[in-house]
């Protein structure tokens, strides 16, 4: 079936192209309805990725956070009209040790191949997760981002030692906020401190035990483990602060993306016997866990709705540009495209 794909062909320029979806391939055809813009999409849209990366990746449809409605399922597992969250990570092999999101062979939407800015998206059946009708679809649009936090938290649970009296999360942006919400849901007994730069943003973290300005951390403050949700140029300072304030043998989970190598105080990492581990993206199990937490902790949806920014109906390429431009000028929050293509 002919399918309209809206690909970024150059910075700030989307063009219509077509592909042909094979209706006999066993894939599910989903019509996107709610798409959420991520920093990674913005780096392509604004052309701030290195020129060679832009040249290699474009043209490509952006967006890897989104949900849609099933249009066609040859196996009949899903009914037409059923809401599903789409999983952007697409493994091509199975491995008993390495998770699907770390396999170098896995492909990722809007990074290795076309993302969700399409009329229809064809997916292997295990790349969709049903969404309960009770969950707000605007919030569910960025479930992928949420599942990245959930993935990091599950990884923390399997890697960090059992002394978890106080945990610190660095970062007052969307990722820090989401990781904090789910940390509280998954580890309610642990005290959670959040470290950020913007007092206004930090005031939104009403559900955590303490918030601190990174400019003014009490000298004697100690944490057992830490999460870095900062990324970019500020990563260096954040990671070294964590190293300063963490107890020996603690773990530091790195979630923030940086375009450049980050210098780290390895002397103190050695002296304290710290473990730094990366977390990136997520897999099907993380999506399932996330959707389960939506159900068991309905208050989460309320917290997440606080970071919904602009909602923009998209019927044309001009609307797509408007959504991305609006997203650039926000301070916090997710821009949602109400996709009607």
């Amino acid at each position: 079936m002919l399918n309209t794909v809206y690909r970024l062909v150059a910075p700030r320029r989307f063009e219509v192209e077509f592909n042909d979806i094979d209706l006999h391939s066993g894939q599910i055809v989903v019509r996107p309805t709610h798409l959420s813009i991520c920093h990674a999409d913005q780096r392509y849209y604004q052309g701030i990725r290195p020129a060679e990366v832009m040249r290699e990746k474009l043209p490509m449809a952006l967006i890897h956070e989104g949900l849609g409605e099933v249009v066609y399922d040859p196996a009949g597992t899903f009914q037409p009209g059923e809401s599903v969250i789409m999983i952007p990570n697409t493994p091509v092999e199975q491995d008993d040790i390495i998770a699907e999101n770390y396999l170098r062979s896995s492909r990722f939407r809007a990074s290795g191949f076309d993302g969700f800015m399409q009329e229809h998206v064809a997916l292997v059946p295990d790349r969709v997760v049903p969404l309960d009708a009770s969950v707000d679809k605007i919030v569910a649009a960025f479930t992928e981002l949420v599942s990245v936090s959930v993935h990091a938290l599950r990884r923390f649970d399997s890697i960090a030692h059992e002394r978890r009296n106080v945990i610190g999360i660095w970062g007052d942006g969307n990722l820090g906020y989401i990781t904090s919400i789910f940390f509280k849901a998954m580890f309610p007994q642990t005290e959670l401190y959040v470290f950020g730069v913007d007092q206004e943003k930090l005031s939104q973290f009403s559900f955590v035990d303490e918030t601190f300005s990174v400019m003014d951390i009490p000298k004697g403050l100690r944490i057992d483990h830490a999460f870095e949700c900062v990324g970019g140029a500020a990563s260096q300072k954040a990671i070294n602060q964590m190293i300063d304030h963490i107890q020996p043998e603690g773990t530091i989970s790195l979630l923030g993306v940086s375009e450049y190598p980050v210098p780290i105080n390895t002397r103190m990492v050695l002296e304290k016997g710290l473990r730094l581990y990366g977390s990136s993206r997520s897999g099907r199990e993380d999506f399932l866990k996330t959707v389960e937490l939506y159900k068991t902790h309905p208050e989460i949806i309320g917290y997440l709705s606080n970071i919904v920014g602009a909602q923009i109906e998209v019927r044309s390429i001009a609307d797509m540009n408007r959504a991305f431009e609006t997203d650039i000028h926000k301070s916090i929050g997710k821009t949602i495209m109400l996709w009607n293509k």
Partner: protein
Amino acid sequence: MVFGVILAGGIGSRMGNVEKPKQYLKVGNKPIIIHTIEKFFVHEAFTKLLVLCPKQWVENTRNLVKKYLGAGAEHVVVLEGGTTRNETIMNSIAYIEKEYGVDDDTLIVTHDSVRPFLTYRIIEENIKYGLEYGAVDTVISATDTIVESVDGKAITSVPDRKKMYQGQTPQTFKAKKLRELYLSLSEEEKEILTDASKIFVIKGEKVYLVEGEVFNIKITYPYDLRVAESLIQDQKSGK
């Protein structure tokens, strides 16, 4: 009940020196008519898809549908078209009447078989507004200035472009109403019909507009075929 009515009745006289009607030419790796049928096939709203084509192409069309849709071919009925576009539509309504009965809300979404680039949204909005208003036409704003000339030699008038639209398909109608209006037309009135929405307009009935897409092109001339081919070829450029 909602029916998809795909009009493949034309014999392609404008297509130049080709042997087949244009809807049977391949674009990408499938005949154009199959691309068009597939867009309707995945939409759950349709009770059946009716494909109306020239008599001598009925069997061939059935074979193509079986070849490309497999078991899904059961969802598609291939019928013989009429002498004109509107007679073809009347054939489809006659079939629906015979097999399912036609009531006030029976809706037909009629579409040119040579417009394979229509979108799910266009179909969806045709159904939505067709049920609500009874008659819908898919259009895009005119980008060229339209001029009217009665004698073909000099301009009679230049209508305000802001009020001008170019008609595409689908066109969607309540089947019963369409038939009633069509049968009430005089032969002279029937002669000036270029499409089905005009039947409503002549009779003073409202036809609502659904926004089409610039790329929802009608493959009419060899040039269009080249354009369509290049649009589909672009899939290879996606990373």
